[in-house]
Structures are given as structure tokens and as C-alpha cells.
């Protein structure tokens, strides 16, 4: 007798997707729980807007629900789901550029989650105002980068991904990625020079 597959948290992402395509709802729930926070963080950094990021991530999981059967094991599941989120975020950015979306991107609402405004010093672990100001400056510098540079920086520095995975997610060559990272680094260094030279971050 063929029943629904038994799903555990110890399963790999690929096994979970496979289980979901065979009808396991638990596998889908585990995948959502595992990827919702990283994807929200990623989309929020790209879009600069928390509500927009939530929409994009929900759309990503809806796509996963509808298209899980199209997933092939040629790439890691994380790469696949980040690619979907990245494409949706880019579409949203394009819509905003043409004024088709009701939302506006901006650094002010970047970190407005449920009670998580970084610029509020009391919300920080150490509660130091200087740290909050620094965080605000870093966010502004990040948001001032061109969209394509920002994607690369977020995936490489914040999500700690490998070059190969980033190339797959963004659909670009290794040389292009390194060039974008190099130029983005130069721009960030220029914008964050005082912070870079202070000893506080050591």
C-alpha cells in the first residue's frame, strides 16, 4: 500500500520538495518555515520595503506550491527558491519604476517589521545610539546602490552565498558578478569611509 511519505525536519530540502510533490502538506509547511525569514530579509533588502517584501515572499511560496513539480535536482533547492524570489523582486522593482505599483521603495520603511526598527536604539541588543546611527548609514548606502549591484551584495555579504549559487540566481556569468561586486564594494567604501576607518567594528 502506498501512503503519504513520512516527513521529518531532518530531511534535506530536495527530499522535502519531493515529498511535497507526492502530496505531503507537512513538507510544504517545513519548507515555508525554513525559508520565510531568509527570503523576507533578502526581498526587504532588495526592495527597501517590508510590506512589498512580504508580498514577494508570499508570491514565491505560492509559486512553490503551484510549480513544485517543475523543480529538477540540477540545482540546490535554496538556489531555485532564491531565483524565484529574485525574479519576483525584480518584477516588482520594474513595476515601481513604471509607476504600476502602489508602493514606493525607500530606506525609511526598509526595516519596519513587527517591532523591528533598527534605528530605534532601544531595540538593539546593546542599546547604543551610535550603533543605530551606523546601521542607518549602512542601510542608506546599500539602498543607494544600483539594483543589480545591491542584489549581488545582499546575496554575497548578507546571505553568505557562494559565487556559483549567486551566478545561478541572478543568471549572470562569474566575471559579471565579480565586476559588480568590485564596483559595489568601491561605492560602499566611499559611502561608509568614516565607519570603515573607525576601530569600533574590530
Amino acid at each position: 500500500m502506498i501512503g503519504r511519505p513520512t516527513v521529518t525536519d531532518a530531511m534535506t530540502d530536495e527530499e522535502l520538495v519531493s515529498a511535497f510533490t507526492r502530496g505531503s502538506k507537512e513538507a510544504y509547511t517545513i519548507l515555508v518555515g525554513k525559508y520565510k525569514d531568509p527570503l523576507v530579509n533578502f526581498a526587504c533588502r532588495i526592495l527597501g520595503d517590508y510590506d512589498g517584501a512580504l508580498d514577494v515572499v508570499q508570491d514565491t511560496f505560492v509559486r512553490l506550491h503551484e510549480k513544485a513539480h517543475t523543480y529538477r535536482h540540477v540545482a540546490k533547492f535554496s538556489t531555485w527558491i532564491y531565483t524565484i524570489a529574485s525574479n519576483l523582486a525584480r518584477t516588482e522593482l520594474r513595476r515601481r519604476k513604471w509607476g504600476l505599483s502602489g508602493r514606493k521603495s525607500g530606506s525609511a520603511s526598509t526595516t519596519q517589521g513587527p517591532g523591528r526598527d533598527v534605528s530605534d536604539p532601544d531595540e538593539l541588543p546593546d542599546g547604543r545610539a551610535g550603533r543605530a546611527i551606523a546601521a542607518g548609514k549602512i542601510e542608506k548606502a546599500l539602498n543607494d546602490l544600483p539594483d543589480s549591484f545591491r542584489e549581488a551584495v545582499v546575496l554575497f555579504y548578507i546571505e553568505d552565498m557562494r559565487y556559483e549559487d549567486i551566478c545561478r540566481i541572478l543568471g549572470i556569468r562569474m566575471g559579471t558578478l565579480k565586476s559588480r561586486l568590485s564596483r559595489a564594494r568601491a561605492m560602499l567604501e566611499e559611502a561608509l569611509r568614516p565607519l570603515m576607518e573607525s576601530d569600533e567594528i574590530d
Partner: protein
Amino acid sequence: MKSTDDREGRLRKLLSALRRIQAPADFEEQLARRLARGRARATILPAWLRPYTVPGLALLLVGAMSYVIYLAQFRAVDGDRSPSGDTMTIPPVRSGPEKALPDELPPSIPAHPETQRRTGTASRPGARADDEMMNAPVDIRPRPSTVPPAQPGKGDVRPAEKMKLGKSEPDRSLMMEQTVVDTALAPPDSLRDSTRIPNPD
């Protein structure tokens, strides 16, 4: 001066110091609601068909309008009239007793030249001759010269005279054509009079 690795490390440290943004607590509930909405929409129209909805409906509307106009213009006038039927079909020539032709056709559709000739309802003077010229078969074979070589004492023999001299029955239609051509080529009387050289006497 700090090395590239050092700068890279500092930048990484700065960026990783940014707080990680998290999804709200009711994210799963929102997602479940969204999936339910999506399923409800999918039961009405499959997702792959949705992008074609508006163009498809527009095409259907245009098609329906065209059909209504076609019916109003051509079908409602008289049972089986269509534009293609009247312009493209040539009625066959009947050898038996002729059937009565329709008395009157709508003015917008000209009757066939054969019908016009029979009923004498040519649209303008000279239309019948034009129609005959247009409908006459064109023989492109090289013709032998009808004019015999000039013989001393006999002079030229015109086709009409040649026919008269021949034993066979003269073709009346050819004679008529010749008359028509002669009349057409002859200068009008007024011109003949004006070109006459007055007698000085």
C-alpha cells in the same frame, strides 16, 4: 594603507551587522489565505489561461460583431445573396427555353452583361459595345496577312469586297464590325469641311 582583504573583511563585518529582518508571526496564515484565494480563482479559470482572457474576449466580440454586420448587410436582403456569389459566379448560357430572369436587381449590384443585353438595361450608352469588347476572346496566334499582294490592274481588295467575291456566305458580324471601324476612323463632317481648301476661283 589597509590591504584589500582587510577592507573586504571590514565591509563584510559592517554589512553582516545589519539586523536580519524576519517574517511576521502570522505569515503562514496569510499564506494559507492567499493559497485558498488562488485555488478559488483556479477553479474558475486555470492559471495558464488567465493572460489570454482579455484578448480572447476582445477577439470573440469582434467576431460576433462582424457576423452580425454580415447578416444585416447581405443575408437579410434576399435569402441567399452574398457578395462573393454575385461577383464571382457567371451564369451558364442556356440553350433551352430561357427561364425568366429576375426583373430587377438591387442598384448596388450590376447585372451580368449578358443579362443587360437581353433586357436592354445597359447602365450607360456604349456599355454594351464595351462589354462585348471586354468579353470577346482574344486570338494571339499570328495571323496571315489578309491583304493580298498588289497585282497590276486589280488594285487592293478590301476585306468586305473580298468576302463579296468569295463563294461562301459573308459573315454579317464581320461586315458590321468593319462598318463600325470605318465610321469611327472617318473624320467628322465639320472637320472635313474646315480642312477643305477653298477654291480661289
